[in-house]
């Protein structure tokens, strides 16, 4: 009995420091975000705070700027997810096939991952500048200068292309790991049947990689939802708010305008999306594990 209390105390002593910090900087902020999302809390005049019920939730979905930020974020996701995901898969398949310079390719396509978002954004501001290297290169193949991040129509796609370029190498490494984990016996068996390269890809590689694809595509989606640094550094959300995102709106509303109530509502809406995506991901990947178990059971 005495020993049990002493291990309890020991456990809490070990877990304690983390628990205190988790409480102050994670639980409490989450709880307060939820509570504030139902109020008009204004940090510069906290005494005037009222409970507003679902008022903020109705307000932000009528707020043109938030809706614009929301649509921009969705657009960004729709551009970057196929670009980065398929790009990473394509690179991994090619590198897996190549027998020479494998190491060079792995390093080369991984280099942008190493660079920080602030660095990449600063660099691409120069690349995308009206008289910059990209416009010069395009000029040599007869394409007229493009505005890129300085044009309202091109700014968001330009940032998406840059971000896909930066992040692709990371998922490429994940896919390469997945490809190497595929049982070579499967391919050998297929070769006995004289299966074509495409058939092998369609019937072996793709199904084997499917759970990894789900994981990668959802990770990219969540990451894209959180996008803020690129427009902060490159465009300030412009031109005409075309690169303004949800997190950018949370940031400006909360820490620049001090409208904590409204910012909290946006944060809750944002986190709901992220949690839904995570649940979908867990559900889809768990499904696969169960199937595998069933398969094994059948074999027995």
């Amino acid at each position, binding site marked *: 009995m005495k020993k049990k209390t002493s291990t309890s105390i020991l456990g*809490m002593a070990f877990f304690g420091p*983390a628990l205190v910090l988790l409480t102050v900087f994670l639980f409490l902020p989450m709880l307060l*975000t939820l509570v504030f999302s139902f109020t008009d809390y204004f940090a510069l005049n906290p005494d005037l705070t009222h409970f507003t019920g679902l008022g903020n939730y109705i307000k932000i979905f009528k707020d043109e700027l938030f809706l614009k930020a929301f649509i921009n974020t969705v657009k960004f996701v729709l551009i970057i997810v196929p670009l980065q995901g398929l790009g990473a898969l394509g690179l991994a398949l090619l590198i897996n096939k190549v027998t020479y310079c494998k190491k060079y390719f792995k390093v080369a396509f991984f280099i942008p991952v190493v660079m920080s978002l602030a660095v990449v954004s600063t660099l691409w501001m120069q690349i995308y500048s009206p008289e910059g290297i990209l416009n010069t290169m395009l000029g040599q193949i007869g394409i007229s200068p493009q505005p890129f991040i300085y044009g309202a129509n091109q700014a968001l796609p330009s940032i998406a292309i840059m971000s896909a370029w930066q992040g692709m190498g990371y998922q490429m490494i994940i896919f390469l790991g997945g490809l190497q984990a595929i049982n070579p016996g499967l391919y050998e068996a297929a070769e006995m049947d004289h299966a074509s390269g495409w058939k092998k890809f369609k019937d072996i590689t793709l199904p084997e990689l499917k759970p990894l694809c789900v994981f990668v595509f959802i990770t990219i989606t969540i990451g894209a939802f959180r996008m803020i640094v690129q427009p902060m550094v490159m465009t300030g959300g412009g031109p005409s708010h075309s690169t303004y995102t949800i997190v950018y709106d949370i940031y400006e509303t909360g820490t620049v305008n001090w409208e904590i109530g409204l910012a909290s509502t946006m944060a809750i809406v944002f986190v709901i999306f992220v949690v839904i995506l995570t649940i979908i991901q867990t559900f889809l990947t768990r499904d696969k594990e169960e199937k595998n178990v069933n398969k094994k059971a059948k074999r027995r």
Partner: protein
Amino acid sequence: MLTKKQKGANWVLVTVMIIMSLFFLFPVVWMIANSFKPDAAITADMNSMRAFIPPALDGNFFENYISIITNTSFLRYMGNTLLYAAILIVLGIVVNGLAGYALAKINFPFRERWLLVIMMLMIVPTETIITINFLFIAKMGLLNTVIGYILPMIVNPFNIFLFRQVFISLPDDVYEAAQLDFCNPVKYFFTMVLPMSKTVVATVSVFTFLGVWNDYLWPSLVFTSSNLLTAQIGLNSITANETTTMGQTLALITMVTIPVIIIYSLFSKQIVEGVVSTGSKEG
């Protein structure tokens, strides 16, 4: 063995991919090559292949780098960031490691529940709570202080979970043997558990360093005073200055990237394993 035909196809593929990789890397090559040139040369070279070739090595080769180092506080910002990273690595390993050990090996009330909570917290993106944390730090009067920057960053549910996964497979009989020698649990943790788990300690340290070095949002909120800025925020404040030339900007971003490249080349094995394992664990 590859047949002759397959070998030929492979060389074609390799050549195509080398060209692809050069196109892929043109921004990086351009950045490094032009970080050694004055702005006039950068503009003049833009139209030719010289845009991707560094200038001849002469007395002015490092001009942009020297002017950044002597005219701005950039080295100081780099030093600041290294210091913050070092503090956060040590505190992070102690706090998250102890918590992970408790969750793995010590039987205390609600242990399984806490583990579940930690796993749920891993989902919450920091952007959700950054406003409230900023408010907290501001109300505590800790804006523009190192403590205000570091305090919310120490605890990391993901690292707690990582430590727990590794510690749970440690043998129990070592602990029992240590207890016979009257080794107290704290001493046991630091002299036995951590040294036995070098890989996870290295992984957490590397990822903490990269996180601190590349972080942008949180330091941009906490630090406004120029003495305490991190490299990323300092970079932004220097490039925002009208007098900073294009060449200097390129030199600056090259310098910010150098420490990260060093870390990646030293720990590439751990990093690649870490990246691949996030995929295989979840997938």
